[in-house]
């Protein structure tokens, strides 16, 4: 395939869904069938083109790629900077390097699966629901076209971000997704709940957008700083060894660390890391396919993708300023642990997955913080597969439960609450088996599942560093290990509560398997949730390593930055380049113990004797108030409300608006006005007494002239004349001042 064709394809990958967005919005929105067909066609086209490009890239020689990672590149002029005539342009372009190639392998495929699933999820073909802006259980979604339009835009944003060759285009995709998340989380914009404490979808949308936007703005600051230091926003130019050396000479490696942190803040928001994680659980208010696309394939992955993308900068920054690594790794590890503990005590089937997503993203961020570039990218890809599977699976569960709710006419029992489920394995076998596969992958079930290999690599990296004297990496290692134990535990809890035992409500009793639109994507995704991990089995892993492709993923994705890291090492900006770790039994054993141990514990507590109807969660008694604390998500929302939101509202409303604006500023103005008015009153009296009727006659004439506006202007004419007089006096003063040279004297006094 020629370079031109590949370049064209790379441009078209994000263009197809964007095009479908416009087509749906402009032309086909009144025809639901045509709308979703268009969205399908576009995303499937992107998927096919993505795989063509990806497989072309996979087929290339790794050593050659290491020399020239950006194998496909094409750009156009966009914004003139500096001097237009000299042709200094900010370019917008697309580029494919090994990292992009693996993203192109995973992302369009997953989004395509979600799109296919969505048609079934929104009950296409059933009678149309009559109420807009709320879920119509069992009926066709009336706003189906809008849904697919925004999903297409979302896909377009994500794919733009993946193929972007510069930070600004990446940011464009990033923000498009931010907006789409807002629109899609708030998709059921008219939905209200009886419980006033439960957040409505429209508020959840705003919360998501604003929380991530706080981070985005800091990131924008980082982009601006990036440009002012590097003089370009292009990744391959700026993040080459040459570019980084020049930048390090200009501002010092420590400032590059600050820049990395500014950009990393964007990740904290987008990938829902502490302290900006609060938006993600509430984002579950959106339709489930939206949750899948936000929390698996697209938005949250974007945050991690960005820091993987700028890794050379982070690496140099960490070297120059060790706090950078501490902050990134610390935030990641803490988030992984905290979110895992919260997930243990959630009852909403999607809520568990939401916190599990936050937790898993924490793994990736922690991996970056300890310099484990490939491990972060690997976990990013495998997580995208199995988390999409889990979300779609949970959607299928909810769908089944809603069917049950419709059957028994019960619309008060929460179909998402796992306490109301039970025994669904028999009712929904396909959903059950695929969900188990996804859950085991998430838990890191050994050897078979993708999650095992990628999580193991992160743990191995952390262990390697800690065994080489990095105490912080040791902390990260143990935190992540405990989090992994919790992960396996809550996953097994979820599977048990949902699928095992007997139905606990009539809803679960009458649940049934979802339609083929939904189950086929589940099956396809479950294949990858298993197989994706086999691309990254360490070479030295007994038996399997040499047998399966010799750790393809590590060498291939590593090729993206291998060359520039080793040059940076020579330049003294890095302590070491990209490393292939020696095999060690200890982290492997840890992985095995925590995964199997967690699954076993989960089964012991929840699966062995499945919950009966009306029984309490067996964890409540032993954990006591701690359970309350976890169930309420460590009270972060309440804390933020009290510390940030309420004071801001008070400050803007009372202090700034009432006291400053209306009181101080307008008050001063009114005082001046009143003073002049009073003076004007005296002048008027003076005028009436002193000046004779002749002037009155003139005034009458003037009033007659302005009759047209009189009804409005009653009483204002005097002010007019006052103003005119003021002007005349001022003019006279100026002329006099200039004539007598007063100004010159004045200005000799004032410098």
């Amino acid at each position, binding site marked *: 395939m020629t370079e031109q064709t590949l370049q064209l394809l790379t441009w078209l990958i994000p263009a197809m869904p964007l095009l479908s967005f416009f087509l749906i919005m402009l032309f086909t929105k009144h025809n639901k069938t045509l709308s979703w067909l268009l969205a399908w066609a576009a995303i499937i086209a992107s998927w096919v083109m993505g795989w063509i490009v990806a497989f072309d890239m996979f087929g290339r020689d790794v050593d050659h790629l290491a020399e020239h990672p950006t194998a496909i590149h094409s750009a156009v002029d966009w*914004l003139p900077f500096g001097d237009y005539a000299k042709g200094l342009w900010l370019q917008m372009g697309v580029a494919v390097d090994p990292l992009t190639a693996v993203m192109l392998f995973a992302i369009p495929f997953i989004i395509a699966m979600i799109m296919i699933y969505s048609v079934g999820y929104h009950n296409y073909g059933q009678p149309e629901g009559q109420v807009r*802006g709320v879920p119509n259980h069992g009926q066709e979604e009336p706003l189906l076209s809008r849904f697919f339009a925004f999903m297409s835009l979302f896909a377009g944003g994500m794919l733009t971000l993946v193929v972007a060759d510069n930070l600004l285009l990446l940011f464009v995709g990033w923000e498009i997704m931010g907006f789409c998340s807002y629109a899609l989380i708030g998709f059921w*914009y*008219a939905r209200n709940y009886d419980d006033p404490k439960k957040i*409505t979808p429209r508020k959840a949308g705003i919360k998501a957008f604003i929380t991530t936007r706080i981070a985005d703005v800091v990131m924008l600051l980082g982009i601006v700083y990036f440009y*002012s230091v590097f003089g370009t926003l292009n990744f391959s130019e700026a993040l080459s060894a040459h570019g980084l050396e020049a930048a390090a000479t200009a501002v010092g490696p420590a400032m590059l660390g600050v820049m990395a942190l500014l950009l990393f803040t964007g990740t904290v928001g987008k990938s829902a890391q502490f302290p900006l994680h609060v938006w993600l659980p509430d984002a579950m208010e959106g339709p489930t396919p939206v949750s899948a696309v936000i929390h698996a394939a697209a938005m949250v992955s974007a945050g991690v993708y960005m820091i993987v993308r700028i890794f050379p900068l982070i690496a140099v920054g960490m070297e120059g300023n060790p706090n950078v690594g501490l902050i990134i790794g610390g935030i990641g590890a803490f988030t992984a642990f905290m979110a895992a503990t919260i997930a243990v005590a959630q009852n909403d089937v999607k809520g568990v997955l939401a916190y599990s997503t936050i937790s898993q993203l924490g793994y990736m961020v922690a991996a970056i913080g300890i310099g484990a570039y490939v491990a972060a990218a690997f976990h990013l890809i495998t997580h995208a597969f199995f988390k999409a599977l889990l979300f779609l699976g949970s959607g299928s569960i909810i769908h089944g439960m809603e069917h049950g709710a419709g059957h028994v006419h019960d619309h008060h029992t929460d179909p998402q609450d796992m306490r109301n489920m039970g025994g669904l394995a028999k009712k929904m076998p396909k959903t059950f088996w695929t969900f188990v596969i996804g859950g085991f992958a998430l838990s890191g079930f050994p050897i078979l599942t993708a999650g095992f290999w990628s999580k193991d690599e992160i743990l191995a990296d952390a262990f390697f560093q800690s065994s080489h004297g990095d105490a912080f990496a040791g902390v990260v290692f143990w935190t992540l290990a405990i989090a992994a134990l919790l992960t396996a535990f809550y996953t097994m809890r979820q599977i048990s509560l949902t699928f095992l035992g007997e139905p606990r409500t009539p809803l679960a009793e009458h649940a049934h398997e979802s339609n083929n639109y939904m189950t086929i994507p589940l099956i396809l995704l479950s294949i990858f949730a298993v197989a994706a991990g086999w691309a990254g089995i360490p070479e030295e892993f007994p038996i399997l390593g040499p047998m399966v492709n010799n750790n393809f993923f590590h060498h291939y994705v590593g090729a993206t930055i291998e060359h520039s890291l080793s040059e940076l090492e020579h330049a003294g900006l890095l302590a070491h380049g990209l490393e292939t770790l020696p095999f060690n039994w200890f982290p492997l054993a840890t992985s095995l113990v925590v995964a199997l141990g967690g699954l076993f514990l989960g089964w012991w507590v929840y699966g062995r004797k499945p919950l009966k109807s009306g029984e309490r969660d067996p964890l409540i008694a032993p954990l006591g108030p701690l359970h309350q604390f976890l169930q309420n998500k460590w009270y972060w929302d309440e804390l933020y409300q009290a510390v940030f939101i309420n004071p801001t509202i008070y400050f803007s409303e009372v202090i700034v608006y009432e006291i400053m604006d209306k009181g101080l500023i307008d008050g001063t103005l009114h005082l001046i006005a009143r003073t002049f008015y009073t003076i004007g009153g005296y002048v008027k009296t003076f005028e009436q007494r002193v000046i004779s009727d002749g002037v009155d006659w003139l005034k009458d004439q003037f009033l007659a002239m302005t009759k047209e*506006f009189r009804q409005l202007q009653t009483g*204002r004419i005097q002010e007019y004349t006052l103003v005119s007089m003021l002007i005349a006096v001022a003019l006279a003063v100026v002329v006099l001042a200039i004539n007598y040279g007063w100004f010159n004297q004045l200005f000799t006094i004032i410098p």
Partner: protein
Amino acid sequence: MGILTIVTFLPLLGVLVILIANRGDKESENSIKWIALGTSIVTFIVSLIVLGNFDKGVSGLQMVEKANWIPSWGIHYYLGIDGLSILMLLLTTFISMVSIAASWTAIQHQIKQYYIFMLLMEVGMSGVFLAQDLFLFYVFWEFTLIPMYFLIGIWGGKERIYASIKFFLYTMAGSLLMLLAILYMGITNETFALPELIEGRAAFADAQNILFLGFAIAFAIKVPVFPFHSWLPDAHTQAPTAGSIILAGVLLKMGTYGFVRFNLPLFPEASIHYAPAIAVLAIIGIIYGALVSLPQKDVKKLVAYSSVSHLGFVMLGIFSLNEAGIQGGILQGVNHGLSTGALFFLVGVLYEQRHTRLFSEYGGVWKAMPVFSVLALIVTLSSMGLPGLNGFVGEFTILLGSMGSPALGPHPWIYTAFATTGVILAAVYLLWMFQRVFMGPLDNPKNKALKDINTRELVIMLSFLFFIIWIGVAPSGFFGLMDSSVAHLVSSVGTAVVAGH
């Protein structure tokens, strides 16, 4: 007669035709509207011809028309256009055309006077952007006050009298100081022509700090720069829809344009001297305007206060005193005119049907007016600075400019950092506004009768969106127009300062 004279005074022809056509009956009222709209369309087309003849490679004035007016005082009739004003002229003719179309059904009484004032307004605004003689500029500058005063005072809301007087007196008071400065310069140099005054700067260089302030206060009130902003919320809120569109779209830009056109080239040392102070006020304005927008209960007032915040960005860009900053500032002025103009129009559409602007009266409008709501969403996002739409391009270049500005002291990034907080707050108040009006259940029975926008309103909105998207996706052409003039301005400010040291 040159093309700039034609584009400036063409609306007067429309005024004349209206006076002739008026017979005071219903039928002639309709024809008055068409005459006014036709005139503004033709004026817009003429301004496009100006654009066609514009040579973007030239940094100086083009299409110059110069004649003596009062020779003994050195006053000329002097029009010219360059990269600093071409976008402003286009914005003026575009906004005038759109706001006349936007008044179609909103204005029900005294139709003749209304459209005459609208056309007179256009003459004044075009004149401000084209005049190259300070005296002539001042005449146009003051002239714009009069039609706007009446537009607010006659066709405005409940507190129109208070708002119009406040607007008039406040801006007039500021202008007087400028008049003093103009007279001083004109008399010391015996000419009022701007290019000659720039040449002969030495004659008043000693007084430049105070002259700078004379101009700056007039312009700062117009922009408005914090703390001179308090006329704006009242004027914007009380003005009829078209008046608000013109105020936000063009009138405020006269202030920022004034800084670029007069303050920077006439008083370069003073500009650098005061740049940090003005940038600080700009940043206060950005944050302050955003904070005050939050608690507003009136949609229009929220949009009005948001202007204070947005114009703070423009000022920050201009007083970065480098190319990226000034270009970003000028473009952001245009962007603000488009986005905020469109927002005012949207509020006007709602007001026309419901006769209220209080948030508490709305909610769930999306259900009743789906097309309208989608358009409103795009405009809201553009005002927020979402990438892909116009606002982002301006904000980004301004941030770049301020980050790399030596004029702002050794740590210019501090300004940039503070400015970005305004971006966050903008997202908060705009999304909150959108939620309270458009989302949620449609529970107010009065809103159920809302009709979606008609063809005329749709065409107006699409014309806004056309530019909003164009600038957002492919801004290079817009930068190209101003580039050589801005480059020349920046280098002349730079050399003047070097020479001075």
